[in-house]
């Protein structure tokens, strides 16, 4: 365990698109090994918050402190090396499931990460997935299967901070329970999880809930 109690601190964050403010004066902290849900009405800026934390949208003002160091514009790759990020509604520019699963492990920043067959089997089993999907085309599997297989990728990347956008949105209740359990196990193994969600059951399983609309 590293010295810093908080892996992530967000201070007075403001984000605007074309002069339209989507996040106003938002602050929060995330402890190591903590699982926090961000809730709020549609359009309240939940997804924009995750995108801002990853450096995908510019901040109007405010600061992001990751692992004790303030992240400045142009340095976000430092943060991304130690994070895993699962956005909502992914569409893929490739044909095969195996391409999607294998690609993140080919990145230079992930070259020290090992993904063995046994690890894939274990993750797939815990997520209720058949191993056979690895040999299928993406259009041959359901949206829920795609969502769950990406959780296997995220888990095996073994990053300290995991940001999830609506992790249970494409899932039926049984799969949602499996995924929630899977995420909780990642958290118990020391990962810090920040998840944007509409799912009250998922939010109830988190250590804390931050409602972005009431800030």
């Amino acid at each position: 365990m590293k010295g810093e109690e908080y892996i992530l601190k967000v201070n007075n964050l403001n984000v605007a698109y074309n002069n339209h403010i989507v996040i106003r004066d938002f602050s929060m902290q995330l402890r190591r090994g903590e699982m926090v849900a961000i809730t709020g009405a549609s359009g309240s800026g939940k997804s924009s918050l995750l995108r801002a934390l990853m450096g995908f949208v510019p901040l109007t003002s405010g600061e992001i402190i990751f692992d004790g160091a303030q992240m400045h514009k142009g340095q976000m790759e430092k943060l991304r090396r130690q994070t895993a990020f699962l956005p909502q509604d992914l569409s893929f520019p490739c044909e095969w499931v195996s391409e999607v699963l294998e690609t993140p492990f080919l990145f230079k920043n992930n070259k020290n990460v090992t993904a063995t067959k046994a690890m894939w089997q274990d993750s797939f089993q815990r997520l209720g997935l058949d191993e056979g999907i690895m040999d299928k085309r993406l259009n041959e599997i359901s949206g829920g299967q795609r969502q769950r297989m990406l959780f296997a990728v995220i888990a095996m990347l073994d990053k300290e901070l995991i940001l999830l956008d609506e992790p249970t949105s494409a899932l039926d209740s049984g799969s949602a329970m499996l995924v929630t359990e899977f995420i909780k196990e990642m958290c118990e193994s020391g990962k810090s999880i920040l998840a944007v969600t509409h799912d009250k059951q998922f939010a109830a399983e988190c250590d804390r809930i931050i409602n972005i609309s009431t800030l």
Partner: protein
Amino acid sequence: MGTIDISIESLLAGLLLMAIPVYFLWKYRTGMVKSTVTALARMVGQLFLVGLYLKYLFLWDNPFLNVAWVIIMVFVATETALTRTKLKRSIMMCPIMVGFVTGAILVGFYFLGIVLELNNVFSVQYFIPVLGILMGNMLGVNVIALNTFYSHLRRESTYYYFMLGNGATVQEAVSPFVKQALVRAFSPAIANMAVMGLVALPGTMIGQILGGSTPDVAIKYQMMIIVITISASMLSIAVTLYLVRRLAFDADGCIKNVSQ
């Protein structure tokens, strides 16, 4: 063996063949009659102008004039690529132009100097046609590749950010989109190469034979033209996309708006 000239009367008689496509386009109310007739008129006008200035380029055979002409071709090709891709001039002009120049110079001079072993690589008879055919092909490939690259990057931007968010560098995150662009842009040329001479006799070869070359010389030129156009096109799009990665994304890898 020289080429038989076509008189103006004969040329007009030949152009009359266009009545066949125009008739069917009119009969089936395609709405393309006006654009076809306009395109035909433009082609005739443009080619007469090209014939006129090529006549003087050939007459003077001046290396500086020949190079100046190629520079003009690069500017026109860049402008055409920007118009057809609807990309922002301020960001995309430099990558496209540098791509064209790199492909034309490296492959063009390799062919003229090393393959043809010309003493004067600027000789108008070779320099202008070879650089011209390279520019034409590079333009077509760049337009398809850039359109494919940006349309997929816009449509699947979430996947791009998914990869960045999981440790990819910009280069790694754009590689699936580069792959798609290359597949789309080069598949027709590679498919054509595979059936060359079987399905149809290619243009360069026909031109050479009509110009008086023997078939064995014509096929060698045809092979070389296919190889140099594909090589130059690949080189130009590789350079363009490399520069695009540096200019069309911000310091954190976010996609800049490059559409006009």
